[in-house]
């Protein structure tokens, strides 16, 4: 049975707003405040980063993930397909910008023989997808690093040690 997953518009809209706000502020300062030489490069790099972030949010909105007995597929502008026999590694990271490390988000990286798929925890049904992938990885004896094991335990799943 094929299961479909998408990013909700709310999560993507936040990223679009962040990317747009960052780009407008940095390009605005570059355009109107005539900053000094080295600052131009710093601001240009930051503006570029915000633009990439904005573009990535658009790509996310257009992407959906398919999971079935053959493997996992990302369908959209940056399509990728990882069949289960090609599954090499799974990594689950946790990031937070708060000093007490509360809140934050997770990122799942599925590595195949010919590329990888990155999935953020803002995806609807992320927990189920992450657990399904971990079970598949466990069946195929993929190694989990210490961070991935700890983060999976937080999701209520115990991977092999």
């Amino acid at each position, binding site marked *: 049975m094929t299961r479909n997953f998408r990013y909700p518009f709310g999560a993507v809209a936040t990223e679009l707003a962040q990317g747009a706000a960052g780009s407008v502020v940095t390009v605005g300062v570059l355009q109107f405040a*005539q*900053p000094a030489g080295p600052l131009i490069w710093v601001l240009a790099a930051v503006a570029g980063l915000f633009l*990439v*972030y904005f573009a990535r949010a658009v790509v996310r909105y257009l992407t959906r993930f398919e999971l079935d007995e053959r493997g996992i597929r990302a369908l959209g502008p940056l399509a990728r397909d990882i069949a289960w026999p090609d599954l090499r590694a799974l990594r689950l990271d*946790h*990031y937070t910008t708060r000093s007490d490390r509360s809140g*934050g988000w997770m990122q799942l990286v599925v590595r195949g023989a010919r590329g990888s798929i990155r999935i953020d*925890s803002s995806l609807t049904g992320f927990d189920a997808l992450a657990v399904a992938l971990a079970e598949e990885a466990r069946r195929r004896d993929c190694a989990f690093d210490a961070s991935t094991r700890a983060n999976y335990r*937080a999701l209520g799943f115990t991977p092999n040690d």
Partner: protein
Amino acid sequence: MLTYTIRRLLIMIPTLLVISFVTFSIIKLPPGDFLSNQIAELKSQGDNAALEKVEFLRKQYGLDKPFVEQYAVWIGLWRGEKGFSGLLQGDWGWSFEYDLPVGDVVGDRMVLSFILNFSVILFTWAIAFPIGVYAATHQYSWGDHGLTLLGYVGLATPNFLFALVLMYFANVEFGLSIGGIMDPEYLGQPWGWAKFRSVLSHLWIPVIVIGTSGTAAMIRRLRANLLDELQKQYVVTARARGVPAVRLLIKYPLRMALNPFIADIGNLLPSVISGSAIVAVVLSLQTSGPMLLEALRSQDQYLAGSFLMFLSLLTVVGMFISDLLLAALDPRIRLTGGTAK
């Protein structure tokens, strides 16, 4: 990591704006300004030419303008008398005390401060890392006790007192004067190999004086952190499976114990710079600390403001780098802090 980097940048930009606003507000808090004091003094002397210059400066730097406008001009987001000319444009303003542009007044001092503080950080890490690892892996040995005692002495001794003691002994016992960060003949001279060598030969004293307490603190934290890791289940399991001790130590516990080193990058730079100010006064170092103190005392607002903004920028950029490194090194969830959404 891109999402993380962007979110951290989004926090960093308003943080810097708030810091700059608070810095400017604090500098402007006392009644009057440097020029008001000057005017009172010049009026009593009847010096009309100097009075005109003071008025010119007041107009040029917008000291007669509303507070918010002065602030916006200072950071370079608002057009002043000279067009856009603030921190963003590389114009640090005018030092009223020295009657020179801040950039010219600061001159070598920022470079010397950077060399000194970078050397202190290297010294701290180079000494603390091997000692911390040794103390943790040889817990309660004679070496551990001895190094712990030294650590406490280092922590408990104020830097300026240590500087005074060193100066006294160097002078009384060896007849040496260890003040200054270079030989006097190189002061104000352009940089060259000879000047650089002179700085290097004078550097070790302030590096030891300023770095000792930080080194001691770092040893304590690394030892405690590594001891915590070494007692965890996975280390016991690996030992039971016969993993060689050094390989086991390097593979996981040491990596985890590195976190405080990386987390400290953000705090280290500003604390070393502000902490070294009194030592710089005691040792007559031509670094930025004593000048910052003097600028704050005399309400030389652009000089003080530029220094404080520079320190804040170092802190914010340092925190940003350490957060990125920490996120890359150890992206684990801390369940005590909360849960991921």
